[in-house]
C-alpha cells in the first residue's frame, strides 16, 4: 500500500506548502492563450453535428440517411447501427455505476428516444452550414409515446415504461413486472421505533427539489482524428482522459493503446465532464471519413442533452429529546436518474445524516428513471439534495426546542469514532471545529433587521483516493518537469508543484507542472471526488521522495561515502556528520549536470491506488433579506467554514468554498429546468436558466479549519465538493427565519416565495 504518512512532516516548518504563489499556468489563462476543447484547429478538419430527438419519449421505427448522404460536402454519417450493442456491464463512471448497454444507447439512441435532445444520428461535413443542412435531410420515423417527468408519477403502477427490462433491484420478493424503479437501497442502524419512542419532539416533512445543471461555461467539445490503420487521437475537454479513453475504446471496439486522449484545458466540469457524449461520435465519424472531425455542443444542446443532477422527492422525520439529543432519524429519498438508471441516490442516502452522531437511523432510497437526459455527477452527487432536506428539519427541531441552531448541532455532531449511518466509524474529522468557528464568527453576532433572517447548515462529503500516477523528470540544469494525470479544473497543478518543491527543497519556479495525455502516464482515475490534491499530491510526494533517494545515492557515489551518511536539505545533498572538516554540499543542479555519467537520467515515478482520503465537513452561515412585495431573496452575507485538513494553497481552497457556495445559492434560489406539456425544455439557455451573476451575491467570507488527515503526507483532505452541500439548507433556513414560512420546495424563486408569504399572511 502507499503508507507514506510521516507524523514529523505534519509538524515540520513548511516553506512553500501553505503559501499563495501565482499559479504556473496563469499567464496563459489571462492572455487567452490557453487552449480549451474548442480551440484546436487541425488541417483538413470536418465539422460534426448531432441530430437530436424532438420528442421526450418515442420509438424509433426507422432512420433514412440517404438524402443526407447524397448532399455534396457530407463525408460521414453515423447512427446506432454503427455502434455495437454492448452487454450489461457495470463500471464506475463519475459518481454512478454505469452500464455499457445503457451508455451505448445514451450516446446514440437505439430502439427508443428517451428524452428530448437524445442523439439519433451524427454527421461530419466540410463546414457547419453543410452539416446543418445534412441534419435536416435525415428522415426519422418516430412513434411518439407517452412520457413521464416526475419521480412520483414514474413510480406509479400505470406509468409509461421507459425500459421493459427494468425490474427493481433491492426489493423482496423480486417484482414480476417491470417498472421505472431501477433500484431500492437501504441503510439502517439501531432501532428506529425505540428511538422515536424516546423523543419529546418529532418533526416530519416532505421536500421537492428540481434538476439543475452543472452550468459549466465551456460546452462539450472535442476533435477526433482516426487514421486508416485504426490509430486514433482525441483532443477533448474532460475531467478524465483515461476514462474517456476507456469508454470510447469500449464503445468503438478499439484497443485502449490505439487511442491517445489529450485533455485540453477544461472550462468547468463539476462532475458533468466525467462521461462521454460527443467523443465516441466524433471518433466514429472520423473513422469513416478518415479526416479529423471537430464537434462542439451549442449551449442549447448542453442543456437539452447533457446530464443535469437529479430532481428529487424526499421525506424526512427526526425525533429529539427536549434537551436537544436526536434519538432517531428516518428518511426516504426518491431521485430521478434521467433516461437510464444511475442517480446518486446511494451517496445521497449515505450523506443525509452523516454530520450527526445517531444511534437509530434509517435511510431508504429509490433510483427512478424518467424521460429527461441521463443524470451526470454534480459536485458531491446526491449530497446537497439530501442534506437540504435534513438540515431543514434539523433547523425546525432546533426552533421547536428553543435551542440555538449551532448549539443543537454541537450536541449531536459526528466526531472521530462516530459510526456513520452507512457503517464505518469516522477517523479524525473537523465538524465540531467548523461549528465552533461559526459560533465565534462576527457574522453570527451581527444583528438582523426586519424581513431578514439567518440560516445555518452543516455538510459532509466523503472524498476519494483512487488510481493515480505521477512522474518527475530531472532536467540537465536541475529544473524538474512534473507530469500529472488529473486534469486541472481549479488550480491544482499549482498545489502539486508546491508539494514537489517542498519535498525537493527547491524554489517553486524550478518545477514545471503539466497534465499528461494517456500515452505519457499510467492510468489515472478522473479529476473528481475532491481527489486531486489528495491523490495526485500523494503520488507527487512519493515520486519526489524517490527522487531524493536517487539524488542522495548519486552524491554518495561521487563522494565515495555510504549513502546513509548523505542527507537532503534545502535542495542539496550534504554529509550528515557534524564537525566534518570538509563541508560537502551538492545542489540539485550540480547532480543533474552529471546524471548521465553517474548512472543515467534521474526520473521518479509513482503509481498508486491512493487510500486514506478523509471526509471534509463544513458549516455555512447565511443572512438573507426577503422583499415582501416581490418575493425576491437577497443574500446579504455569507460565511463558509470548512475543514481542509491542510490547505496547500489557501487561495484555491477558498476558491472552492466560494464557488461551491454560489452554485448552492443558484440551486436554492433560481435554477430549474422548465418543461412544456410535451416534455420539451423551454429554458435551454443562460437567460432563462438563471445561474447567479456577479450582482446576485455578496463577498463570500471563508474560514479554513485544519484538522489534518493523518493518511496524507501533508494532512490534506479533499475540499472541492463539500462547499455545495450546506448552501441550500442554510438559505432555506434563513428564508424560513426571515418570513416565518418553511420552504420545502426548491428553488425558492420570487414567484414561489411571494405566493407562499401571501398565503401565510392571508391565513394568519
Amino acid at each position: 500500500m502507499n503508507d507514506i504518512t510521516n507524523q514529523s512532516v505534519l509538524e515540520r516548518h513548511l516553506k512553500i506548502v501553505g503559501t499563495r504563489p501565482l499559479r504556473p499556468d496563469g499567464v496563459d489563462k489571462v492572455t487567452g492563450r490557453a487552449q480549451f476543447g474548442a480551440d484546436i484547429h487541425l488541417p483538413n478538419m470536418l465539422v460534426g453535428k448531432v441530430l437530436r430527438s424532438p420528442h421526450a419519449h418515442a420509438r424509433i421505427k426507422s432512420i433514412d440517411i440517404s438524402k443526407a448522404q447524397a448532399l455534396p460536402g457530407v463525408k460521414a454519417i453515423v447512427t446506432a447501427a454503427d455502434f455495437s450493442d454492448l452487454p450489461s456491464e457495470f463500471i464506475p463512471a463519475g459518481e454512478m455505476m454505469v452500464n455499457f448497454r445503457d451508455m451505448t444507447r445514451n450516446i446514440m439512441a437505439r430502439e427508443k428516444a428517451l428524452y428530448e435532445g437524445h442523439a439519433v444520428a451524427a454527421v461530419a461535413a466540410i463546414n457547419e452550414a453543410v452539416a446543418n443542412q445534412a441534419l435536416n435531410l435525415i428522415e426519422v420515423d418516430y412513434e411518439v409515446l407517452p412520457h413521464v417527468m416526475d419521480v412520483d408519477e414514474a413510480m406509479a403502477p400505470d406509468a409509461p415504461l421507459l425500459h421493459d427490462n427494468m425490474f427493481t433491484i433491492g426489493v423482496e420478493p423480486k417484482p414480476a413486472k417491470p417498472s421505472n424503479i431501477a433500484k431500492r437501497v437501504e441503510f439502517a442502524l439501531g432501532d428506529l421505533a425505540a428511538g422515536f419512542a424516546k423523543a419529546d419532539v418529532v418533526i416530519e416533512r416532505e421536500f421537492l427539489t428540481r434538476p439543475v445543471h452543472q452550468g459549466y461555461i465551456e460546452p462539450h467539445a472535442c476533435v477526433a482524428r482516426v487514421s486508416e490503420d485504426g490509430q486514433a487521437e482525441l483532443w477533448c475537454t474532460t475531467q478524465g482522459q483515461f476514462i474517456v479513453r476507456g469508454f470510447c475504446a469500449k464503445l468503438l471496439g478499439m484497443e485502449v493503446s490505439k487511442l491517445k486522449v489529450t485533455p485540453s484545458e477544461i472550462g468547468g466540469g463539476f462532475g458533468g465532464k466525467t462521461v462521454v457524449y460527443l467523443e465516441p461520435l466524433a471518433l466514429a465519424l472520423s473513422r469513416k471519413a478518415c479526416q479529423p472531425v471537430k464537434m462542439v455542443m451549442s449551449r442549447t444542446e448542453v442543456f437539452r442533452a447533457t446530464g443535469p443532477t437529479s430532481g428529487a422527492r424526499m421525506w424526512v422525520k427526526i425525533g429529539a429529546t427536549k434537551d436537544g439529543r436526536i434519538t432517531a432519524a428516518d428518511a426516504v429519498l426518491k431521485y430521478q436518474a434521467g433516461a437510464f438508471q444511475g442517480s446518486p441516490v446511494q451517496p445521497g442516502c449515505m450523506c443525509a445524516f452523516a454530520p450527526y452522531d445517531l444511534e437509530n437511523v434509517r435511510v431508504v432510497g429509490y433510483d427512478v428513471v424518467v424521460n429527461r437526459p441521463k443524470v451526470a455527477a454534480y459536485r458531491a452527487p446526491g449530497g446537497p439534495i439530501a442534506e437540504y432536506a435534513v438540515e431543514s428539519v434539523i433547523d425546525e427541531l432546533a426552533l421547536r426546542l428553543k435551542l440555538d441552531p449551532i448549539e443543537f448541532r454541537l450536541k449531536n455532531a459526528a466526531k472521530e469514532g462516530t459510526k456513520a449511518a452507512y457503517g464505518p466509524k469516522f477517523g479524525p474529522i473537523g465538524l465540531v471545529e467548523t461549528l465552533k468557528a461559526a459560533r465565534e464568527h462576527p457574522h453570527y453576532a451581527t444583528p438582523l433587521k426586519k424581513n431578514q433572517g439567518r440560516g445555518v447548515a452543516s455538510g459532509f462529503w466523503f472524498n476519494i483516493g483512487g488510481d493515480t500516477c505521477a512522474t518527475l523528470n530531472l532536467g540537465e540544469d536541475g529544473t524538474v518537469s512534473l507530469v500529472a494525470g488529473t486534469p486541472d479544473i481549479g488550480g491544482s497543478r499549482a498545489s502539486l508543484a508546491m508539494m514537489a518543491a517542498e519535498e525537493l527543497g527547491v524554489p517553486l519556479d524550478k518545477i514545471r507542472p503539466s497534465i499528461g495525455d494517456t500515452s505519457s502516464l499510467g492510468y489515472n482515475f478522473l479529476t473528481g471526488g475532491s481527489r486531486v490534491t489528495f491523490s495526485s499530491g500523494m503520488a507527487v510526494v512519493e515520486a519526489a521522495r524517490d527522487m531524493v533517494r536517487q539524488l542522495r545515492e548519486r552524491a554518495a557515489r561521487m563522494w565515495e561515502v555510504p549513502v546513509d551518511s548523505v542527507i537532503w536539505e534545502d535542495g542539496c545533498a550534504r554529509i550528515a556528520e557534524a564537525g566534518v572538516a570538509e563541508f560537502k554540499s551538492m545542489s540539485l543542479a550540480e547532480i543533474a549536470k552529471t546524471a548521465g555519467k553517474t548512472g543515467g537520467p534521474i526520473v521518479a515515478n509513482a503509481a498508486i491506488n491512493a487510500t486514506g482520503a478523509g471526509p471534509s465537513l463544513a458549516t455555512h452561515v447565511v443572512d438573507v433579506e426577503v422583499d415582501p412585495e416581490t418575493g425576491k431573496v437577497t443574500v446579504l452575507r455569507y460565511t463558509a467554514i470548512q475543514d481542509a485538513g491542510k490547505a496547500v494553497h489557501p487561495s484555491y481552497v477558498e476558491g472552492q468554498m466560494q464557488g461551491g457556495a454560489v452554485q448552492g445559492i443558484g440551486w436554492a434560489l433560481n435554477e430549474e429546468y422548465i418543461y412544456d406539456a410535451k416534455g420539451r425544455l423551454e429554458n435551454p439557455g443562460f437567460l432563462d436558466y438563471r445561474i447567479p451573476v456577479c450582482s446576485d451575491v455578496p463577498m463570500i467570507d471563508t474560514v479554513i479549519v485544519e484538522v489534518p488527515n493523518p493518511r496524507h503526507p501533508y494532512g490534506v483532505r479533499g475540499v472541492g465538493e463539500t462547499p455545495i452541500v450546506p448552501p441550500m439548507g442554510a438559505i432555506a433556513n434563513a428564508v424560513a427565519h426571515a418570513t416565518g414560512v418553511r420552504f420545502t420546495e426548491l428553488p425558492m424563486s420570487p414567484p414561489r416565495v411571494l405566493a407562499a408569504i401571501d398565503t401565510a399572511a392571508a391565513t394568519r
Partner: protein
Amino acid sequence: MAKVILSGTLRQLAGGIEEVEVDARDVRQLLRILGERFPELGPHLDSGYAVAIDGEIFQDAWFAPIRPDSEVHLVPAIRGG
C-alpha cells in the same frame, strides 16, 4: 476472525444477516468467501462496493490487509463529481 457488517441491500441479499465472521487475510479473500457463503451477493460484490477496514475506506484494493480483529463494512463506492 474479522467481523464483517452487512447493511442495506447486501443484508437483504444475504437473507437478513447483519454480521458475519470471516477468516480472511485480505479484501480479495474476504469477497470470495462472502460470495461463496452467500451466492446472491456475489455479482454485487464485483462492482460498486468499497471496503471499509476499521474505518478506513479502500476502493478496488484486493490486497488491503485485514487483521484478525478487524471490523469490516461493505460500503457503496463513491466516485464524486
